[in-house]
């Protein structure tokens, strides 16, 4: 995973709440066995509408999405994160996220930060006043800015550290392999085993 410190790019006022991962990427695009190339699938249904915000010329190059409450709820499909990333969106700011989506984002280098609903509204107004303007998300300072309006965003310390360092989760866990082995040695015999087949 690449290290992230600051993200700057076209800001998008995504005035929708409860955006579920079925909207981000419909199930028919989940048949593939690859991890890249999902840019066409992003918001597939909504993008059929020429007026959909990501189709508008002023928001081409979309990089930072400012979304409403409960972005990324529903299905665990990590494809939602891959589709956003492949499309070029590298940060999403919203008042609240679906838990699994937020977790998936952290593993895949999509920066997901929370700010209060009123502040998202303020960002929407600022961006709409001058469509196409950039946002800057500073992971070191934990701030997000549009023009001269800057506010802090929330991200848990652990995810922030991993994104800043570009760390692989599995590698981190395997540093504790001895403790995993120790735990396994004490595991009770009644606990489930799938093998041998019974």
């Amino acid at each position, binding site marked *: 995973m690449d290290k992230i410190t600051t993200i700057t790019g076209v800001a998008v006022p995504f005035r929708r709440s409860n955006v579920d991962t079925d909207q981000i990427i419909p199930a028919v695009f989940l*048949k593939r*066995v690859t*991890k890249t190339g999902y840019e066409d699938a992003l918001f597939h249904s909504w993008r059929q509408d020429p007026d959909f915000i990501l189709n508008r010329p002023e928001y081409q190059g979309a990089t930072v999405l400012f979304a409403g409450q409960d972005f990324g709820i529903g299905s665990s499909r990590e494809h939602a994160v891959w589709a956003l990333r492949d499309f070029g969106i590298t940060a999403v700011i919203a008042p609240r996220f679906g838990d699994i989506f937020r977790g998936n984002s952290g593993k895949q280098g999509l920066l997901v930060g929370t700010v209060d609903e009123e502040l998202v509204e303020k960002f929407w107004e600022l961006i709409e006043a001058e469509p196409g303007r950039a946002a800057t998300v500073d992971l070191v300072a934990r701030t997000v800015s549009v023009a001269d309006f800057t506010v802090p965003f929330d991200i*848990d310390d652990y995810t922030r550290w991993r994104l800043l360092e570009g760390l692989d989760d*599995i590698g981190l866990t395997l540093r504790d392999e001895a403790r995993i082995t120790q735990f396994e040695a004490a595991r009770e015999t*009644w606990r489930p085993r799938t093998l041998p087949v019974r």
Partner: protein
Amino acid sequence: MSDTATAPSTGPKTLAEKVWNDHLVVKGEDGSPDLIYIDLHLVHEVTSPQAFDGLRQAGRPVRRPDLTIATEDHNTPTLAIDRPIVDLTSRTQIETLRTNCEEFGIRLHPLGDIEQGIVHVVGPQLGLTMPGITVVCGDSHTSTHGAFGAMGIGIGTSEVEHVLATQTLPLAPFKTMAITVEGELRPGVTAKDIILAVIAKIGTGGGQGYVLEYRGSAIRALSMDGRMTICNMSIEAGARAGMVAPDQTTYDYLKGRAHAPEGADWDAAVAYWDTLATDDDAVFDAEVYLDASELEPFVTWGTNPGQGISLSESVPSPDSYSDPNDRQAAERALEYMDLAAGTPMKDIKVDAVFMGSCTNSRIEDLRAFASIVKGQKKADHVRVMVVPGSARVRLEAEAEGLDKVFEEFGAEWRFAGCSMCLGMNPDQLAPGERCASTSNRNFEGRQGKGGRTHLVSPLVAAATAIRGTLSSPWDLAVSTGSTTEGVNA
């Protein structure tokens, strides 16, 4: 989430905290997540190929193939399963799972196998899901397994790879929420109505950061199938997991199943399981109450599972919401659903009825549906699809003659899989079609592009299939004399 913390290792604890603490490999410090051991990993074809690729690229083996099991469910056809899958991309995905399981030594129940089915039906059915364990799967409905007093957590593909490689997951601490449902359900009201009412009450984000524990006399009275229906939809309230404390109902369900503990192991397990219930003086971070006796058959009107009301009510007006975001969401939902505020829910005509999904495809669900449609004919204009949750459920239903009941009713009796719940295989709604569905998500296009979904219980699905409009069994009792007595799915 700096305001959250699991309980200390001493003092009164909740069910969730006990299970969590007993799986702690490394306690996180300074804001790091806890490293939690995973007892059981369920794998399916859709969220695993990229995880296996990751292992290959890093040269890592699967740490515990003996704690891992795979089946094919999301992307499989429910017709002509003995023939090659027509859609080439789907076929490749299925074949990729088979190759991966072979290469990494993972037990697989492929299409056509007697143990094949929806992962969340297969685990409990094999006796692999049991109290006090941690279960993960690359599927958000892993919360289902919480019905046994297990902690079932839905994960993404990166986490699937992580569990395959390490049999652990770094997980942030959670908060606990008690959902207490007291009283007796009226005939015709079921587990599905309870959970739809819970989600309508707390909202799609209301459970965010929490593990829910369902408690109270109405939950105790439910069968395991009913409890699975409830825990299954915990994720629709945004929760990390949903659980029910194990009791005699749990043990009776589990005993004698293929992978349930035996002999001294069984006794040791039960002795431990009996300690799991939340301590009397434990404190939840949040509490929600519902009176079961006041519940009616429930139905969703909108495009998220929180947009639900009693079937006897009318489509709400967006103006009735004070929060501007809720109002806007309601406006958008009504437009997508092509519904006018004020329309009685029971006046809404449907084109299709889907009876299936990991929420409601177990044998009791099929029995409940059959109890209403037996000897009836479906409404002419309605297409009715019945999809069992597993190959075994299908066989069990056929042994009871339920397949004949469905066919005489005019329904299609399919092979096991996720089917129209997520519209990934060919079982999809056409644009504009409206469906009463026993599944778990009414998101835009979930059951097929442009399709419109109303989430309901098996009993409501059955009554709707008969009348052709959203209906409860109560409506039938008047017009056809059907009874719902004894049905408690």
